[in-house]
């Protein structure tokens, strides 16, 4: 059964460094999402992406963040200058079409640790 994959599983970086988190959504899916979960807190929406552009973004998704679909398979989240508070689990998700009641398929997550 196809699954969303994410790499790396764990990323450790120094404050101020740039990081790129990678996701490969399920191949026939068209809508892509990034969420994050700070330890002990709720899963929070960051951004949705469709047709090579951002559909919606949350307040968390400020100028430090960007997303890209550089080729037909990868979907990346870049944090330009990491802060301590960016330490979290980052989840990618995808869905085949847009509907309010569609299931979103999640990746296993990337744990980002900013030192």
């Amino acid at each position: 059964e196809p699954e969303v994959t994410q790499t790396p599983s764990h990323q450790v970086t120094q404050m101020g460094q740039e990081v790129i988190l990678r996701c490969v959504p399920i191949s026939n899916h068209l809508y892509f999402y990034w969420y994050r979960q700070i330890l002990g807190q709720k899963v929070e929406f960051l951004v949705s992406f469709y047709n090579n552009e951002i559909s919606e973004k949350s307040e968390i998704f400020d100028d430090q963040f960007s997303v890209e679909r550089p080729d037909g398979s990868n979907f990346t989240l870049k944090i330009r200058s990491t802060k301590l508070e960016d330490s979290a689990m980052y989840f990618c998700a995808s869905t085949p079409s847009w509907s309010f009641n569609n299931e979103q398929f999640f990746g296993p997550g990337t744990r980002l640790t900013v030192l």
Partner: protein
Amino acid sequence: AQRVTQPEKLLSVFKGAPVELKCNYSYSGSPELFWYVQYSRQRLQLLLRHISRESIKGFTADLNKGETSFHLKKPFAQEEDSAMYYCASTSYGGSQGNLIFGKGTKLSVKP
């Protein structure tokens, strides 16, 4: 702002006991509601959604608009039900289906 509340951080029951995981939402329109589950060392996955009115792994959830609740229930808990359970909603308010999650409830089913 749309909000999903799960009041219990941890729920511990014995095998065979009934389970109810509480979820309340705040939204004046007609939200779509979901339960996602995360078993140990596995990814978040959909358990059920209210529009389907289905029973998955013995779990059911009924949308109560009067109480703005979507509690998850199972009459007889099994040890394999132990997991983190997240209630989530989407909205018709112009969003592209992004999910709003509750904080999650950890269900522990003891033998």
